[in-house]
């Protein structure tokens, strides 16, 4: 699935011009960088107070790189231009923060400490291994991620409903989409703390009416975790639902009819035809959802602060406390970096696993 590779015959002069432009651009970038370093270190009086000039130089360098690519490599250069802006943009935005982040992770840096930050190697890492809160949060994340499967089933059900022959389909589609639009902050307050309030919340009243005498949604560990899962699911089910609905609408009609003609029961038709065809889009939806789920924090922070007794704590909400409430920046960053690496490994494995699987199905 790719356009064939083309090789142009590029004249030497044009190639050299390309090299020259890239060279000049690079020179400018290096010069700007050097100037600022010298200025900031006090070696020369020439320079600017902020590093913005390096940013401009980087933009110029990026443009030079693009032009140079086209001049030097012709068609291949034009093709490179598609991806270049995104790559340059992303690299520019994350390279410094990531490197600096890794450095911070290896320091003892408490913002309240008068002595500032001290390099301490892997001490934070060893401390992390013995940290019961981090371990507890990681275990909770497993529960939270498993909940995605339930969300998937519900989202799939809703997508099937919306795809059926129904009246007022547009109305239902819009309504089902709405929860996605709400900010987690508003959700935590208006739903978690108001609607599910023990005394006056309508949800609690409903629960009482249904026979639950003490509808405290956040008081026992299991129920609190379920309530958080529910709140989070409520906002994100529409996300999966629209992806799945889009998939259903794109299903080839003839295949469905063939299944019907063959006399398959609806149940068989679903498992034999619809579900396998939907597998790729399902996997995309579930993986994106898992990634969002792994960052779950806002609702937990606002509604339970991780309680009762850490039952609803997520890794991100724990890092928030360590980082924000305790200004323990070095350790907090180490926790986050390790979490990042864990997620990357997990997602890579997941992608490897499902890619083999989807290929089998297709």
């Amino acid at each position, binding site marked *: *699935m790719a*356009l064939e590779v083309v090789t142009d015959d590029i004249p030497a002069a044009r190639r050299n011009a390309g090299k020259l432009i890239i060279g000049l651009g690079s020179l400018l970038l290096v010069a700007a960088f050097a100037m600022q370093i010298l200025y900031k270190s006090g070696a020369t009086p020439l320079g600017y107070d*902020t*590093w*913005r000039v390096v940013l401009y130089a980087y933009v110029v360098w990026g443009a030079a790189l693009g032009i140079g690519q086209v001049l030097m490599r012709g*068609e291949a250069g034009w*093709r*490179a*231009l*598609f*991806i270049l*802006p*995104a*790559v340059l*943009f*992303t690299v520019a*935005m*994350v390279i410094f*923060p*990531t490197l*600096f*982040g890794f450095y911070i992770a290896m320091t003892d840096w408490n913002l309240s400490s008068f002595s500032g930050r001290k390099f301490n190697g892997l001490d934070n890492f060893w401390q992390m291994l013995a940290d019961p809160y981090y371990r507890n949060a990681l275990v909770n994340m497993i529960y939270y991620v498993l909940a995605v499967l339930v969300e998937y089933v519900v989202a799939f*059900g809703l997508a099937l*409903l919306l795809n059926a022959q*129904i009246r007022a389909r547009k109305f*239902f*589609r819009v*309504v*089902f989409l*709405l929860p*996605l*639009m*709400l*900010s987690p*902050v*508003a959700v935590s*307050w*208006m739903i978690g*703390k*108001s609607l599910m309030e023990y*005394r*006056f*919340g*309508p949800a609690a009243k409903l629960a009482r009416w249904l026979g639950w005498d003490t509808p405290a949604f956040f008081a026992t560990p299991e129920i609190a975790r379920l309530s958080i899962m529910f709140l989070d699911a*409520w906002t994100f089910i529409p996300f999966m639902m629209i*992806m799945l609905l889009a998939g259903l*609408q794109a299903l080839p009609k003839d295949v469905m009819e063939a299944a019907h003609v063959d006399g398959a029961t*609806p149940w068989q038709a679903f498992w034999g035809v619809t579900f396998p*065809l*939907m597998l790729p*889009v399902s996997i*995309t939806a579930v993986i*994106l959802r898992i*990634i969002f789920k792994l960052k779950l*924090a806002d609702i937990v922070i606002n509604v339970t602060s991780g309680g009762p007794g850490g039952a609803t704590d997520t890794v991100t909400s724990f890092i928030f406390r360590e980082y924000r409430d305790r200004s323990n*920046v070095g350790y*907090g*960053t180490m926790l986050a970096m390790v979490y*990042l690496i864990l997620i990357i490994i997990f997602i*890579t494995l997941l992608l490897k696993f499902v890619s083999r699987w989807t290929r089998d199905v297709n």
Partner: protein
Amino acid sequence: MSTEVISSGMIGESAVTPGMKARFLGSRALIYGALLLWAFICLFPLYWTVTTSFKQAVNVTQGHLIPWVDFQPDWKGWRSLGLSPDTIGTTSTVRDEFVKRFTNSVITSVCASLLAIVIGSLAAYGLTRFKYRFAWMRNDDISFFFLSQLILPPVVLALPFLVLYKELNLLDSRIGLILLYALMVLPIVIWIMRDQFKSIPIELEEAALVDGLSVWGAFFQIVLPIALPGMVAAFVLSLVLCWNEYFFAALLTSTDAKTLPVMVASQTGSQGINWWSMAALSTAAIAPLVIIGVVLERYIIQGMTAGAVK
């Protein structure tokens, strides 16, 4: 439930026996029951939020539900924002704040989404059509590189970004937020647009190339119009994520560029909650997205449909 749904569309066409008719009605009832139940689950919290913004304290603490029946609506919540009928004409420092933040939210989220759509679509197109090699990275690795930006918990980058933005003089500027938000939603855009472009038959472009168009010409004239609904879908999703972003907005802005979510969050201080003003602010904060959702919903599904099943 799902099986019923698939069958229901087809049963109507075949010969109808009384037994089938009963089954058909039963499945209909089930479908609409489920639809209405979920619609209620989706709408009730919104209803609760909107009505709470018109409540007085006692209505909240007693859980009154229906305006004019349970309680007498009151402009209290909106008055605290300077947005009620009787305060709208007067000077209100709260409203000024609100309007300023609202404007900033609109500008940053729209610009960031647009930026992400532009560079994200280009990248997604490149990744689906051409083979790249950059050091050890091939297309899949480059895609994963982009995706990995989505994984990053924002808190990791808090302090580094603070330092970086300070040095670049981007603190408390809309540009700074726009760049950051664009980075944040870029992976989603690339992911969605990649599926989009994959679903467009490559023969279209091959024909265009034969006709003498360049790759960029083919992209703009042939591919882009087809992929437009997908771009709208990606745009709306980006908009939602940017609009609701709170963490960096609180960290990197102070006066000029501050956005709405920070204002919502800060309703929650040490003195209990004025539910009515919290609700009014929440309503005002979600209203634009709800409107966008209603208007553009068609494109969202349509846009995602194109690339969904391959």
